[in-house]
């Protein structure tokens, strides 16, 4: 495949898969035979053949439980790992063949892996990154100044990284990753360990990069807030297979087939609690009721029609399940090869 071409597709996977061989610990080898006997190996599938595309400028959450294959996929897409089969391109580059060229176009931010030097001021790391990305010094200096202003790093860059709070350090990490103007930002758990304020700040920075600058964002996170506030699209992976690929709204609406109907009544309901199959009702106050509807059993419209006839309703809201519940359901779900959307 030709490399280096520009395309509207930022990331493309075609039947990409990865398997590993690991020692079969179930086969006992005892005594001195261990010295010369090679333990048989078994094949472990980290990623089943996977196909999806991410367009330039999209903001995609790549989510799944631990061991689902997220890390393997990101490592292949950033050129760290070779796949066992299939093809992938990132900005037209085959990552494992064209790593140097790719590194000029992408940036990676890992919440648990710092790329700043712990004992040095972040400014020194910026200087080093200027060199290793082989950037023009003047342009890089102006770029660093712009990033500092944008991320509120004034006064932080000259302090040793070890003295920064985690939130301050992560802002520096993202700024450092953006120094070479990457077109794709791979983020792996960027908000892990951050407090609420720092998390919100970082999310808004990433969102702004995507919306204002058109940087393609590919994010993995276990944090529902990251997924909701940063991304428009979700790809869910489970046991090495894509089980959902669609918008965040669709994910919320369809993955957990449950809706919540909340009612404010104009007069107290004195009758018996409405009983319907697939509906759990809760009286919060005499004037407020809540109904959890399993839409695989009964449509929300049917439940609502039944309630309107029995209750004096002043106001009502119908909500999809919170993203936390959606992600919890995904993680708790048995493996499935079916793509939901």
């Amino acid at each position, binding site marked *: 495949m030709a490399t280096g071409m520009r395309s509207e597709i930022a990331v493309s996977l075609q039947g990409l898969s990865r398997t590993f061989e690991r020692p079969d610990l179930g086969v006992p080898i005892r005594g001195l035979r261990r010295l010369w006997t090679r333990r048989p190996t078994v094949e472990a599938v980290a990623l089943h053949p996977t196909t999806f595309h991410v367009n330039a400028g999209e903001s995609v959450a790549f989510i799944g439980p631990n061991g689902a294959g997220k890390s393997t996929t990101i490592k292949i897409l950033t*050129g760290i790992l070779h796949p066992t089969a299939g093809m992938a391109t990132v900005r037209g580059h085959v990552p494992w063949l064209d790593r140097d060229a790719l590194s000029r176009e992408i940036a990676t931010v890992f919440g648990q892996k710092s790329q700043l*030097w712990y004992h*040095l001021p972040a400014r020194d790391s910026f200087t080093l990154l200027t060199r*290793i990305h*082989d950037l023009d010094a003047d342009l890089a200096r*102006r770029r660093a100044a712009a990033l500092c202003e944008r991320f509120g790093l004034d006064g932080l860059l000259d302090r040793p990284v070890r003295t920064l709070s985690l939130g301050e350090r992560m802002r520096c990490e993202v700024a450092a990753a953006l120094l070479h103007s990457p077109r794709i930002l791979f983020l792996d758990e960027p908000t892990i360990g951050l407090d609420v304020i720092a998390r919100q700040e970082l999310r808004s920075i990433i969102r702004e990069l995507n919306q204002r600058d058109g940087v393609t964002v590919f994010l993995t996170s276990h944090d529902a807030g990251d997924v909701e506030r940063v991304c428009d699209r979700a790809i869910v992976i489970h046991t090495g297979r894509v089980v959902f690929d669609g918008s965040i709204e669709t994910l919320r609406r369809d993955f957990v087939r449950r809706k919540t109907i909340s009612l404010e009544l104009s007069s107290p309901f004195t009758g018996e609690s409405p009983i319907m199959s697939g509906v759990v009702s809760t009286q919060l106050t005499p004037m407020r009721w809540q109904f959890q509807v399993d839409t695989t059993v009964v449509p929300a419209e049917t439940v609502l029609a039944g309630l309107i006839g029995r209750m004096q309703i002043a106001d009502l809201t119908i909500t999809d399940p919170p993203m936390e519940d959606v992600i919890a359901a995904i993680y708790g779900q048995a493996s499935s090869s079916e793509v939901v959307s």
Partner: protein
Amino acid sequence: MTSVRGRGGRGVVGIAAYRMRVIQAYFVVHLRDQMAYLGEVALGGIILAVLLFVLTQLWQATFRFQGADTLGGYTLAQVIWYLVLTEAFITSRVAFARKIDTDVRTGDLAYALVRPGGYVSAHFGAYLAERLVRFAFALLVGGVFALLSVGPIPVGPVPLLVGLAASLVAMLLDFVMVLGIGLGAFWIEDTSSIYLIYTRVSMILGGLLIPIDLFPDTVGAIARALPFAAMIHGPARLVLSSGLADVSGLFTMLGGSLALAGGLVWWEYGVARRRVTAQGG
């Protein structure tokens, strides 16, 4: 957004120049990092001074016991200055094999590999900075100690410069060997034992405490056939000699060892990169 993208490849020379700039950048950053640990470096200097004091006492007793002015062609003052040079080489060693070992074990290596500039270049720049600071400091402490205990000895500027150049080549060889040991973590459980053997063998057969010229003939022949003597004894002997008689043999041994070790580690690195596996999820 203003583009400040890299200036791209410019052929073999351009790539080599780029690698040198990367090594220089890592060198500068780690040099500053070393400044944050000057206290640790100073502590190493105190330990070196104590060590030299003990060794000086032993050598003084040996010379007294032998009742000779020279042993194997070395005066007492020359032996003490020899010790200063060899100890400076050994105590300035950087045990970065442990770092590579940890990188491999924790999966951090995979993250380091994705950075442009190269994993080896990054380690080499850091190694040089740390090593040269320690080497210079050890020479300073050792030099002051030797001056106070046995006084100055005549040293020609050319042997001094050539000896220091040989030490630099020896450090490069040491870097390659330690890199090879660290990358061994892809195949063996723990490389610290291999590193321990490497350091101990090189100290004994490299002539750290006793010049190779004083070894029994058979052991001396074995030591000279290995690269350790060229790394430790060779440069020190050169500095103390009045001419450059052994210089070609020394650089041939260092260069040959470097080529051989470099080739092996290059191959090992290539195999190791293909063995990088995913960790975490």
